[in-house]
Each structure stands twice: as structure tokens, then as C-alpha cells.
């Protein structure tokens, strides 16, 4: 057998791949579910914090800034490990799925709050004053005047950051979530062949490559508008 054949036999073994394809497909569903949950809850929480911050109550703002800094400074894996292995000490036993979801949500919340907040503060003061002087309330000004302008600015950085954090779903494998990497790893040890990992890698590319390209496209598109 030539080297090339052996290489193909090892990493692209069709028999092994066919056998574990359903497992990887299941893992893909779990990854998509986890990713979707993280994106929704993380962005909603981040926007909520940014809106609270724009209210300008100083003690609350200091608290928000601290929380945001905390979850920007901590590696996501450390948060996952703390929730999964640490919380059972006080009789809370979140599953691996919940631990991963919660951790990534907190991280995305922190990063998106920063971006939303930067967007809100970038809107000129005159916009606020003009809107308020026409009789709009604080809430109406925020929702109908400031946010629509602010969100437009935040879309490119937000997209890239969201993709980067969503890729963190692979970390779930450390706490036994049966997402793509977890399924692929256990398939490797069952079949004693790394082809399932190749399959897993392809699955990640199918999910994330279009997102990365989309993020790049958004960036260039927004850059032209300036």
C-alpha cells in the first residue's frame, strides 16, 4: 500500500465515516441548538444591559461595567469548568449542555454589551435633545431614534464577535456535551480510526465557513457606506 493510500485509509476511511455519519449529524444538531440558544440569549442580555446602562444610574452602571469586564477577562473554558465542576458543591448540578450554554451566554452578553454601548454613545447628543424636544419620552427616544442608528454601526463588529463566541460551543466537549467534537472524539476511540474527526471538521466548516464569509462581506459592505 502506498503512503497516499494509507493516508486516505486513515483519515478518510469511507467505511468508518459511513458508520459514524449519523452520530456526527446528531452532534451537528446539538451544536446548532446550542449555538442558536447562545446567540439569542447572549445578544438579548447584552442589549438589555446596554439599555439599562444608558439610563445612567451610577451604582448600577459600575456594577454592569464590572460584570462585563469580568466576563471579558475570564476564558470561557474556565467559566464552563467552574459551573460544571464547581456548582455541584452547593447542590446545583447543571448538565454539560446548560453549563456551556450559560457560560457562552455570559461571555457573549459581556462582549455585545460593550459593542451596543459603544454604538449608543456614538450617537450625537443633538439627536437626543432634538427627539426629546419634540415631546418624545426617554424610552421613545431610545427605541425610535437612538437604537436604530446605533444598531447599524454595531452590526459588523457584533457579527464577528458572535461567530467567534459561537465557535466556543466546541468547548462543551470538555463537559461531555454530545456536540460535534464530542461525538467525533468518542467515535474515534470506538473505531480506533481518526476519520470521524475529519468528518467532524467538515461539519464545523459547513456550519461556520459561510458565517465567516458573511461576516467579511458585511464588513466590506459597511466600509463602503462610510
Amino acid at each position, binding site marked *: 500500500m502506498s503512503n497516499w493510500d494509507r493516508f486516505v485509509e486513515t483519515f478518510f476511511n469511507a467505511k468508518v465515516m459511513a458508520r459514524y455519519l449519523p452520530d456526527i449529524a446528531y452532534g451537528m444538531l446539538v451544536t446548532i441548538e446550542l449555538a442558536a440558544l447562545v446567540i439569542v440569549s447572549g445578544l438579548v442580555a447584552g442589549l438589555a444591559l446596554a439599555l439599562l446602562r444608558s439610563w445612567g444610574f451610577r451604582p448600577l452602571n459600575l456594577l454592569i461595567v464590572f460584570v462585563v469586564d469580568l466576563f471579558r477577562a475570564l476564558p470561557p473554558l474556565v467559566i464552563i*469548568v467552574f459551573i460544571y465542576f464547581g456548582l455541584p458543591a452547593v447542590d446545583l448540578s447543571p448538565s454539560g449542555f446548560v453549563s456551556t450554554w450559560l457560560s457562552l451566554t455570559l461571555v457573549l452578553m459581556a462582549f455585545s454589551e460593550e459593542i451596543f454601548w459603544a454604538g449608543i454613545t456614538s450617537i450625537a447628543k443633538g439627536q437626543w435633545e432634538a427627539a426629546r424636544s419634540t415631546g418624545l419620552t426617554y424610552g421613545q427616544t431610545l427605541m425610535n431614534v437612538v437604537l436604530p442608528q446605533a444598531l447599524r454601526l454595531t452590526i459588523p463588529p457584533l457579527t464577528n464577535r458572535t461567530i467567534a463566541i459561537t465557535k466556543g460551543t466546541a468547548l462543551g466537549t470538555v463537559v461531555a456535551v454530545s456536540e460535534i467534537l464530542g461525538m467525533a472524539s468518542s467515535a474515534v476511540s470506538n473505531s480506533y480510526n481518526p476519520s470521524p474527526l475529519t468528518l467532524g471538521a467538515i461539519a464545523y466548516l459547513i456550519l461556520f465557513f459561510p458565517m465567516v464569509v458573511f461576516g467579511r462581506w458585511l464588513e466590506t459592505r459597511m466600509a463602503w457606506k462610510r
Partner: protein
Amino acid sequence: MLQTFFNLDILKAAWPILLAGLGNTVLLSVVVVPLGLIGGLALAMLASVRKPWVRWPLMAWVDFFRAFPPLVLLIFLFAGLPFAGLELGGFACVCIAFFLNTGAYYGEILRAGIESVPSGQTEAARSTGLGRFQTMIYVVLPQAVRNVLPDLLSNTLEVVKLTSLGSVVAMPELLFQARQAQSLTYNPTPIVLAAIIYFIMLWPLVRLLSRLENRALARG
């Protein structure tokens, strides 16, 4: 509660273990950040060659490694390559995975930086007799780096945080040591302590970054 998450006796016992881990985390970062920067710089300088047959494969390379979760890359190298008779060990795997992954991110940032320098700068430098390479090193790059400094710093923060992935391939860095100490003592205090160490180490950078970023977006 305090007994569970911040037990002073366990804190004292775990301290030397974690300190060793912190040393390794710093060491790993000091190796991996320059490695990623070198990879990124090479990619960015290649991308400044405006030929489609250079540009498109480069873009595909960068997007490929940006789409790949770093942990997947790491596991592939660590658990997959031995099947091909290549046992690299945890440290080498981490270095290669980080070189590929963070190199792509740094490359994308530096490329944007290089493109932000007006072409008149290059033309002026070339007309004074500087070579293409000299122009890049002495004229374009210094301005490019200044223009994208916040992004470079932000990526560096991410890289340092990412070194915690080393724990998955049994590198004795901070998180790995904390988990060892935790399983020895049946108490989560070491993990809390590790988190505090990460926070103290990285907080100044996070503060600096959020100032820089706010200013950048406000300028539009």
C-alpha cells in the same frame, strides 16, 4: 458558602500548584503570541501583493482557520495525527494549532491595517529609492500597526485566554493545575482562585481595550 468556594486552608494548599500553572500560562502566552503575530504578518504582507492568484487562496486560508474552532484543530492534531504515526506532544500541538488559528486572525487585522495606509505613502517611499520590502517595514507597517492597535490588543487578549485550551491536552497551565487541585481536594476553591488570577492578570488589558474601542466606534 465561603467554606465551599473560598476555603482558606485549601487556598493555602493549592497556592503553589496554581502558581506553577500561572508560570506555564505566561510561558505559553509568551511563545504563542509572537508565533501568531509572525504568521499573521506573513499572511498580511503576502496579501498586499495584489494578484488574484495570491489573494484568493490567502483569503480562503484565513477564512478556513477562522471558521475552525481552535479546540477542534487542537484535538485533531493531538488525537488524530498519532494515527498517522506522528506523536507531537501537547506543547507542539498547542503551538501549531495556535499558529494556524491566531495567525489567521492576526493576519486579517494586519491586512486591514496595511490597507488603511494611503497608497501615497508607498508611492512617496518608493520614489525616494526605498525597496518594496523596505517600504513595507519602515513606512507602511508602523502606520498600519498604529491604526489597528486596539484590534491587535483585543486579539492578544483572546489568545492569552485561549491558552486555557492547553488543559484539554494535559498541558500543566493554570486551568489544568486548578482542576488537578480541585479533584485532589474535592473543593471548587482552586477553580475560583484560578478565575481570580485570570481576572487580575487580564483586567487592565480589558479596561484599556474598552476605552480604545469606545473611542474608535464613536469616531465612526
